[in-house]
């Protein structure tokens, strides 16, 4: 093996080949570093705006079309309404629970408070529904 290496070292052609291999390796490393540096510096492709994307709807041809501002408003109201009705249901459950705990001879402040909250939220929901229906 050492004899072969010695022969290889001694050959000018072999030396040139080694230098060529080294140069090629360096070039590959330099290219790799350059490429990764450019990739880090280049700004990542930015999504135009997530907002409009969130308000896309599919038409009959399965292509996403943006919603109009009016439609976005209606959807936002519907979402708000869904959240409020969920809260209303939660309060109604709590009211029922407080009612079950109370007795006929007892004044339950908890029931009065819960009923008050339910009444106010139900009024808000009713007004929201009328607005949604108006659109």
């Amino acid at each position, binding site marked *: 093996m050492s004899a072969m290496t010695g022969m290889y070292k001694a050959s000018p052609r072999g030396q040139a080949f080694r230098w060529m291999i080294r140069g090629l390796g360096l070039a590959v490393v330099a290219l790799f570093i350059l490429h990764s540096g450019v990739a880090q510096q280049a700004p990542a492709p930015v999504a135009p705006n997530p907002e409009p994307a969130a308000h896309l709807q599919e038409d009959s041809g399965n292509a996403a079309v943006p919603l109009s501002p009016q439609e976005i408003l209606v959807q936002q109201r519907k979402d708000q*309404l*869904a959240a409020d009705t969920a809260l209303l249901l939660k309060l109604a459950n709590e009211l029922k629970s407080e009612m079950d705990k*109370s007795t006929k001879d007892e004044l339950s402040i908890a029931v009065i408070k819960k009923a008050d909250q339910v009444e106010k939220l*139900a*009024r808000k929901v*009713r007004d929201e*529904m009328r607005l949604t229906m108006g659109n």
Partner: protein
Amino acid sequence: MKAHDNQKRFEQLNVQRHKEMTSDTEKLLALANRLKAEADKASTGKAATDALSMDAVRQAEQIEKLAHSVREKMRSSVSN
């Protein structure tokens, strides 16, 4: 004797009021369930025309009235 009758009547009224409050609360809870189902259905509908029905508005009104009734009935137990 009259005081005893009054006491008895007062107790009967309290029992009646408590029954009504319990019944109102049950109705209220059932309506709240139906209303939430309708609101969820309308919210997940893609088209802007998937609006809520007039029935849903009436349900919300009914919930409001029942809650008001429960609150007032519970308050009236103090005045007695």
